[in-house]
């Protein structure tokens, strides 16, 4: 099954930690652990902060563009990963080991429709 992990947290408090160029990013040990378990990392990335977000609607007659994220909330989507694994238990494990979850954030696990 394919799942999208949406990493959610407060971007001011939990945003990406800067790391020196010669240091590995904080998610590398997670990626190694997942690969060792046979969880396939299809793709994923951190996202730029919501201050860079643009919201687009199409009313039919015009395209409405606004600055900012889809919803103003206390927590924001900080990044995402698409993984391929056996079942929800594996996906829950992957989410529980992610640095965002370990640092007080929340990970939403969503099955990808096309993989069902």
């Amino acid at each position, binding site marked *: 099954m394919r799942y999208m992990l949406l990493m959610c947290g407060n971007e001011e408090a939990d945003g990406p930690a800067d790391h020196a160029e010669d240091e590995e990013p904080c998610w590398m040990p997670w990626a190694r652990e997942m690969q060792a378990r046979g969880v396939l990392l299809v793709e994923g990335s951190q996202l730029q902060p919501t201050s860079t977000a643009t919201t687009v609607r199409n009313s039919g007659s015009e395209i409405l563009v606004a600055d900012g994220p889809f919803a103003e909330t206390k927590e924001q989507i900080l990044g995402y990963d698409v993984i391929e694994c056996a079942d*929800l238990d594996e996906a829950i494990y992957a989410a529980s080991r992610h640095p965002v979850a370990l640092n007080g954030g929340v990970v939403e696990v969503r099955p990808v429709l096309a993989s069902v």
Partner: protein
Amino acid sequence: MTDAQAAVAEAFQQEWGKVVATLIRMTGDWDLAEECAQDAFTTALTRWASDGVPDRPGAWLTTTARNRALDRLRRSKTEAAKLQEVAVLSGPEEPAPWGDSGVIDDRLRLMFTCCHPALTLEARVALTLRTLAGLTTAEIARAFLVPEATMAKRLTRAKHKIRDAGIPYRVPPAHLLPERTTGVLGVLYLLFNEGYSASAGDDLLRPDLSAEAIRLGRLLAQLMPDEPEVAGLLALMLLQDARSGARLDDAGELVSLEDQERSEWDAARIAEGIRLLEAALRRQRAGPYQLQAAIAACHAEAATAADTDWTQIALLYGELRRIVPSAVIELNRAVAVAMADGPEAGLALVDELAASSQLTGYYLLPATRADLLRRMDRKPEAAASYREALELAPTEPERRYLARRLAEVSS
């Protein structure tokens, strides 16, 4: 009831969960499994009447349900159905190995899947009752006082989530097993309590749910014989249920433990509960259910209320609170301490709890305080606490009990 009808009713009790669980493993389709199981039992009503009851009713029902599923899948022309058909044909009687020997009972897979933490607690309870116990949607709706349509929606939503989110149909691997087993036990105990002390409404007892919980508890204890907490929960339910006949008087009024007619307690259930508990405790892995069962056993073994070993009960509550920190457990410990060392000692603990405001809104806090004050003959204060408890009590019999006590201390 004819012999065939009686045999089908008996088989329904014994075999429903097993037939559904096996069909789910074969087809991966929960709705199809339930419908085909239902068909098999309906067919049994006519066939058993004409041909006689088969030697192995369970095997007959599973085969009939499986054939029905195959028919349905053959008639449906979709690719998915063809794949399911292959799965049903290739792996019917092929259960996976369990540990070194033996097989995993499909009902155990079903139980763990129904109680998966990715489902809401309400959904876990409803799904367990529907698929394992075979209650109808209407019966479950009635038991939980919600409209049937609401319950039907809840069940459908849960089954879709299992399918679409990829909740596995299996007994969890060793590293997840302790936590998931606790989850299953939690669902069964909630079910038992829902039957034992209804959380809302006019009837204090809804015995059907308690009976189902005990039946499922027996099944789980049989399927997981090495888990002392499973036996602990079964023992706890049996020991509590043994008192159910004495909890209400002829007029339907609540009778407190100390005033209950002990000869009305079910001696066979008590003996079975104590036997199970002693075997579990010998494994030296005490947990919350074994400790609660041990407390229930202290009550069950006392010939009269005055013979109760309250010192032992207070110690057991202390141990329980150490494992599961909870204000409700501390309140129970306070009651035991009051019985062992006098109401003053208990009242001090109750007042500490009240000051911590952890139990604000919980009627047993003022009710306990009121009982202790009554024993100390501090009537006006007792009356004030009874009034406070009356405001908060959830069911009619509980309110009537408190009103009677209030009248006593007011006279």
